[in-house]
């Protein structure tokens, strides 16, 4: 873990609410080693109502450019201020935080299910799986076509499937209604998105005894294990979503009990 200043290299608006920020260390320090599922804590400046840092997943890494991507949806003041950052501006991060998705040790049928901006950590995961020589399917869901982000990036690493609530892209409905889930047998599922979606995916996986990891978005104060505010109730008691998570195996969770 480090506390480092970054410079915004670019800030691209992907839809009404969501921006992709590409950032690199301000002083060109070497980026620490990072794994998919990990996140950063952003210090939000000029935001009178944002007292604490804001956790944002590591969306992607470009090691050659010493660059991190952050995919941020503006839902409140903190994320709005992050989305308003301009190229050349500075931001202070703690990183990398949390555990990471488990990269399988054998080839198999892997599925990544993301909803809305919950696809953020999955792009980095997709790349790592690809680098490990695995092929994966990506099932991305959202309210509408414009909410399914970074499709061309995902395409490089596997096959894409979509659902949208309004039917504007792919199947109409929720991700768990996609025929893919009936047609194909997966060995492991990774998921991140709104809690109801992750619950549905977890239930699907659990019923079929498919291994599954979810990425939690519990409220956090510190992000590095000091405050004990972000706890998730698991079968082995309260664990910190920021250090022992955000990625958890669904067998640890009590969601389905």
């Amino acid at each position, binding site marked *: *873990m*480090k*506390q480092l200043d970054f410079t915004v290299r670019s800030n691209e608006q992907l839809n009404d609410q969501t921006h992709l920020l590409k950032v690199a260390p301000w002083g060109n320090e070497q980026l620490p080693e990072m794994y998919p599922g990990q996140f950063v804590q952003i*210090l939000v400046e000029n935001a009178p*109502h*944002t*007292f*604490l*840092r804001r956790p944002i997943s590591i969306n992607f890494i470009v090691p050659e450019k010493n660059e991190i991507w952050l995919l941020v949806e503006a839902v409140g003041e903190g994320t709005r201020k992050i989305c308003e950052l301009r190229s050349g501006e500075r931001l202070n991060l*703690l990183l990398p935080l949390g555990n990471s998705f488990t990269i399988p040790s054998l080839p198999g049928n892997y599925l990544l299910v993301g909803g809305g901006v919950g696809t953020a950590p999955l792009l980095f995961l997709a790349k790592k799986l690809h680098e490990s020589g695995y092929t994966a399917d990506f099932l991305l869901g959202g309210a509408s076509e414009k909410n399914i982000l970074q499709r061309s990036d995902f395409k490089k690493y596997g096959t894409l499937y979509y659902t949208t609530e309004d039917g504007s892209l792919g199947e109409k409905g929720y991700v768990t209604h996609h025929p893919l889930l009936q047609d194909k047998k997966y060995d492991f599922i990774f998921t991140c998105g709104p809690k109801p979606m992750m619950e549905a995916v977890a239930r699907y996986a659990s019923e079929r005894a498919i291994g599954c990891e979810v990425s939690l978005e*519990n*409220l*956090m*104060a*510190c*992000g*590095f*294990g*000091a*405050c*004990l*505010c*972000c*706890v*998730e*109730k698991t079968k082995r*008691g*309260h664990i910190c979503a920021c250090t022992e998570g955000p990625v958890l195996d669904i067998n640890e969770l009590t969601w389905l009990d």
Partner: protein
Amino acid sequence: MKLRNPVMTASGTFGYGTEYTDFMDLGRIGGIFVKGTTLEPRQGNDYPRMAETPSGMLNAVGLQNKGVDYFVEQIYPVIKDYNTHMIVNVSGSTVEDYVACSEKLVGLEKIPAIELNISCPNVKEGGMAFGTSCSSAAQVTRAVRDVFPGTLIVKLTPNVTDITEIARAVEAEGADSVSLVNTFLGMAIDAESRRPKLSTVTGGLSGPCIKPIALRMVWQVYHAVSIPVIGMGGICNWQDAIEFILAGATALQVGTCNFIDPSTSVKIVEGIEEYLLRHQIDSVTELIGALEIP
């Protein structure tokens, strides 16, 4: 107990120090108050435990910890080599709890002091209740004093009409120092869902929002007792630290602001050094209670 400098970190906001070693040099600060420790392990309260508020936060952690035995066996061996003072924050629901927990900490060479937390607003069975009456505060202080020979710091709650009264009561029973303030009992509601933001409905308010009240209490207690006062409540930078010292604090604890900048405490150490140089003051002790009232 002699401190390298007056800047320490507050219980429940700094883990066991371990969480911060990547961000700062623990050897630069005066001491670390470790997590609230109880006789038995505690799971703490349900999620959600946190709500952001204007210039502060509410927490309802509820003293989650693995119990004093685990501390002594598993954690102490790791942290005893840290190059700073490690002080254990002791909580309980009964006087017997406090005593039994404190006894287990006797003789741990690298634990020069304990801090009796009679002020936690987040557990039903006690904590704060001890700190809101002179007699119970006195009683628990006396009982622990009888078994713990090291430095005994009693941590006061601000949720009282007259904090000086409680401070005097624990001083009379042998406390070596008082620390203040713990969190203020507060509450947050989500207007849309019409639900409380914390699983426990109420929780403890901390951060810069409480600083003006905490500072006032430190100033009052400084004038009411003759033992050293350890001040805290929203300290985020060296200016805040100097203000607490001027109000009467011999030492300080940095709490919530560690979450925002994990190196806050070291920056405060440096800021105080520069302040002393700039004002040509030899020692920070000259500033204790040195508020000039025109």
